[in-house]
């Protein structure tokens, strides 16, 4: 297990990058703590896979260093880094039995047979595959194969980090739950440093202690799921986290109030005047329908019943705005205004969040 340090790390797939745009990964400086679970979250092409490949050693960064426990491994080959990786599509050795698959990394490192046997039994119990130990890996289902990949990674006690590259892509929804919780309890029990790459916010948020949101080769925010939900540092984070994402409305900010199309909204705290485009962000969870003329004028366009709650799509100041209403909460037919929870409004200037005055960002 190890602390992972990214020191001035950057990468370009071009030999001679000219501008910042040529970098698939822009300069990064991070310390990832030993034993924590991290998720790299972003849409395809945001640089998250590039970063993962640099950590696993499949790719050499064009600039900067990667350190495991303060030891420079930037140019060390994959095999020497003592990491384990689970890939998007299950990678198992088809012709081997499940047992041999699990034993493989230990045998290659010349471990004692008795130790191997004991570890394999332990891991098989952890991943719940004791009954299938002597079956050939070929005929197994995708989720069983993914469990074997995971088991192969955990069988070595000295792994520095476990890396996951969208490991649940080919898994059915109900099996996703099982695998994810299994992963979560394994992390809790054994405290491996884990890095999980995904485009799926639910996977990232539920898995990780810290979520690293990436956008266009850059880390836009790193924080706990709660921080990302309540205080998105960038409008992209607001949009990307949450389903539906955060509502954004153009507003003029002055002190404690925001002016949206002539309606004044209380922001809960005061803000300094900010240059550029200013917007307020409010999550659908904190938007309420009102019938008494209070708040912003709105028109209900559509209601989507998604089971545990309803999503109300509204027209506000010519833009679409979403609100979430509880499963058993009614939607008044004469709802014509919306109000916001003041404490949950965030203010953005040129897409970056600004902190209320008197408080740090």
């Amino acid at each position, binding site marked *: 297990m190890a602390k992972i340090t990214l020191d001035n790390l950057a990468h370009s797939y071009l030999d001679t990058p000219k501008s910042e745009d040529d970098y698939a990964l822009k300069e990064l400086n991070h310390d990832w703590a030993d034993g924590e679970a991290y998720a790299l979250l972003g849409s395809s092409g945001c640089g998250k896979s590039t970063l993962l490949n640099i950590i696993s050693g499949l790719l050499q960064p064009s600039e900067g260093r990667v350190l495991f426990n303060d030891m420079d491994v930037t140019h060390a080959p994959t095999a020497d880094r003592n990491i384990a990786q689970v890939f998007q599509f299950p990678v198992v050795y088809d012709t081997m039995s499940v047992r041999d698959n699990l034993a493989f990394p230990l045998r290659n490192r010349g471990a004692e047979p008795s130790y191997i046997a004991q570890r394999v039994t332990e891991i098989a119990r952890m991943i719940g595959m004791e009954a299938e130990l002597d079956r050939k890996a070929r005929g197994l289902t995708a989720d069983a194969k993914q469990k074997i990949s995971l088991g192969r990674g955990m069988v070595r006690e000295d792994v520095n980090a476990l890396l996951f590259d969208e490991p649940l892509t080919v898994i059915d929804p109900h099996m996703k739950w099982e695998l994810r919780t299994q992963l979560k309890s394994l992390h809790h029990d054994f405290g491996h440093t884990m890095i999980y790459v995904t485009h799926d916010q639910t996977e990232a948020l*539920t898995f990780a202690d810290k979520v690293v949101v990436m956008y266009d080769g850059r880390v836009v925010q790193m924080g706990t799921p709660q921080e990302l939900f309540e205080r998105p540092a960038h409008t992209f984070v607001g949009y990307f986290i949450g389903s539906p994402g955060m509502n954004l409305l153009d507003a003029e900010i002055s002190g404690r109030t925001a002016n949206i199309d002539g309606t004044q909204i209380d922001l809960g705290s005061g803000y300094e005047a900010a240059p550029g485009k200013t917007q307020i962000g409010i*999550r659908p969870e904190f938007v309420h329908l009102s019938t008494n003329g209070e708040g912003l004028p709105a028109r209900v366009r559509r209601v*989507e*019943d998604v*089971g*545990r709650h309803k999503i109300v799509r509204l027209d506000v100041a010519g833009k679409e705005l979403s609100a979430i209403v509880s499963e058993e909460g009614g939607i008044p037919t004469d709802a014509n205004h919306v109000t916001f929870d003041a404490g949950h409004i965030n203010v953005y200037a040129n897409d970056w969040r600004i902190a209320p005055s008197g408080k740090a960002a």
Partner: protein
Amino acid sequence: MTLTLTNVSKAVGAHTHIHPTDLELQSGTMNVLLGPTSSGKTSLMRLMAGLDVPNTGQILWRGEDVTGQRVQDRKVAMVYQQFINYPSMTVYDNIASPMRLMGQSRDEIDNRVRDTAELMQLTPMLDRKPLELSGGQQQRCALARALVKNAGLVLLDEPLANLDYKLREELRAEIPKIFEASGSIFVYATTEPEEALLLGGNTATLWEGRVTQFGPTPSVYRKPVDATTARVFSDPPMNFLTVRKGGNALSFGDGQSAPVPAGLTALSDGAYMAGFRPNHLELHQHVSNAMTFETQLVVTEITGSETFVHLDHHGERWVGLIHGVQQLTLGQKLPVYLDPSHVYVFATDGTLVSPAPYAEAA
């Protein structure tokens, strides 16, 4: 304009893909086929399209028997999970191709291609080749091709499965709008309950080659006819509790018991399965007649606004979806509460005995 399947079944060798199925799809409806991988969604679509011929039964299109008619002779459009476009043609030509095959006039084709491209937000990409587009745009192009065909039946086989989460969310919101404009019968296969709910319309739940229930989506969700349907249409999975009713007491777990809730006193004595959804479990007592369970906390997952708690209740694994971020210690004892009006009661064979009262009221 309807598509009717009567007693349709399909077996290949000894393996039954579809058990005898009756289904009637109305024109201008969105119909979701919901079920896990290899539950028969694709098989059923292939039968509807005419790519496969059923072993038994009939398929009627506007009342006319089309069983055994080739797919080429039917008005069917299909979109797959993989983004299938003609790689050497521009987006414009891709969209135009089905109409050119039908021999429509140049102007007519041009009009429809541009309208559809506008609807699918592809107008700036009309001159590009599919492989120069992002995954979402490629799939939009495939959808556009299916739409211009003006087919009475549009089959979508997990069309968003290969897309990023957020793109999926956007297209998911667009599909119902597109569909409303077309008036065709849409059939949409998915493995995700949430997707079915977002698309609305009707849902048929599938399990091991059987349609377990078919009806308006929210109603299938809230009023499942059996435990299988409830299980298929629940993400996270529905929780189950084995209970035994004896007189005025319910016994469950390791010898716990509770008085029989008011609505269930009429049930005859015996063993039942109580089912309830994760979002109906609560950490605080909201209603006076709530049932209380002593559980142990196994895992928590925090989404930022909600917390999933994975619980162990005397050997049964439950999931609870709790509002807000909860800071709890793993392994701790956790009392949870359940409003009896959220409980479905199933017989031990899975058939519904008593629906959840809240759903009946809705």
